[in-house]
């Protein structure tokens, strides 16, 4: 039981990371990672929605009719997202402006719905809580790595604090403009996937069935 809980919580951090293994939630991972502060806020938003969404769905899982289960989950998730969005606008107004629509788009973030539908519908409240939290933190881990890299190399700062002195301020560092554009998000996530999969061999995808065998079977 204890091992299982540990696996549910720690699994999504590396072994079963929603971004690098399942390749979900890429859209927001690209959009909000030009600097660390908005990325952190986004991580907090997503983690709380994933956790609370899982808990609420698990709480009423015995009563949800299967015909409308997705709608029920989406209703719960979107209510949570609206609440989180309102809180951010109240207490972190300027950063929430930078996040613009992406907080609202957590509603359509596949990670959240995948966890409520795939896990919370069939598991108890405690496990669902751990699962949501784990997946939220797994997503956060990748976002924080990507955002730190992009902010550091793109602007020489972290959380807005200057780390590498820019050439224009008398230092040596020339910022890499590409890092502030969306493609660099792709590159870094791609590199991360490569890195993790060459370390964690089981994550490698099965080689796809070769085409010529298909052709032969069609002929026969």
């Amino acid at each position: 039981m204890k091992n299982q809980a540990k696996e549910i919580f720690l699994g999504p951090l590396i072994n079963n990371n929603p971004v690098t293994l399942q390749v979900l939630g890429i859209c927001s991972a690209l959009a909000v990672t030009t600097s660390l502060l908005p990325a952190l806020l986004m991580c907090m938003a997503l983690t709380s929605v994933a956790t609370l969404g899982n808990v609420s769905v698990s709480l009423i899982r015995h009563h949800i009719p299967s015909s409308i289960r997705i709608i029920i989950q989406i209703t719960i998730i979107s209510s949570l997202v609206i609440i989180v969005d309102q809180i951010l606008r109240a207490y972190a107004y300027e950063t929430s402006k930078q996040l613009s629509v992406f907080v609202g788009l957590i509603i359509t973030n596949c990670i959240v719905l995948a966890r409520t539908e795939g896990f919370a519908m069939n598991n108890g409240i405690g496990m669902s809580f751990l699962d949501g939290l784990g997946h939220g933190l797994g997503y956060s881990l990748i976002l924080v790595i990507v955002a730190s890299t992009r902010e550091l190399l793109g602007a020489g700062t972290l959380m807005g604090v200057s780390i590498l002195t820019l050439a224009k301020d008398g230092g040596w560092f020339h910022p890499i403009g590409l890092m502030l554009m969306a493609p660099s998000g792709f590159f870094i996530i791609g590199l991360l996937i490569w890195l993790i999969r060459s370390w964690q061999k089981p994550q490698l995808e099965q080689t796809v069935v070769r085409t010529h065998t298909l052709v032969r079977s069609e002929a026969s």
Partner: protein
Amino acid sequence: MQQKNIMTGSIHLSRAHKDSVKNTVMVALLVSLICSVLVSTTAVLLKPKHLENQLFYGGHRNILQLIEIIQYDMNVEDVISRMDIKVVDLATGEYEENMDISQYNQREAAKDPVLGIPVPEKLDTANIGRRARYATVYLLKENSYIKYIILPVYGSGMWSTLYGYLALESDGNTVAGLKFHEHGETPGLGGKIDDPSWLNQWRGKNVYDNGVPVIKVARRKAPLGSKHEVDGLSGATLTGQGVTNLLQYWLGEHGFQPYLERFHKSEE
């Protein structure tokens, strides 16, 4: 064996019950109800905070700068809690209560074919061409009495359009402060309209003389003890003239005069 059958039977029963039309409708209703209550509760609870943010970040920061000039005790939250924002119909001088203040943008409205009107040429001393029918005014209260009326004013300077706010005391005649938050005048010449010592001269000046807006920037030095004039800025005669013109327009019959008169009457 028998027991197992009963068990599977009961599971079937509960599943059938779960998927019954009645339960489906019930669950849908309950979930929607709870979610809507949660969402609206958060919205209502956080509304004051949202308004405060909007005021502070949403373009109203300029007003806070002006209030700083009035040397009002500057505590942002305190000022915001005592500030009332109203939309005024300039033609009648009455408040328009049915407008969403947070959505109204006076500058955009001036260009709008419905919300804006052309300014008659002989009245258009501010040289703005069109103005919005409605203007946003800000009322700063003290102990539930209105202490300052803050009016948006703008018009042509030498090179650019000057945008600013004018604060009047509750008599609608005495200037409490003036500040331009946006202009493109030459730095060091017309740009001196940002100079605090010049801006300070406006305080205490009177706008009207027998109902005519006569407040102005003098050509050179204002006559000693003048109630209506402030010193001219050397090297910035045309900018100064622009300030005179735009103030006289906005305080005149086509500007805020109907509103200020109505305000004065209601205060008495």
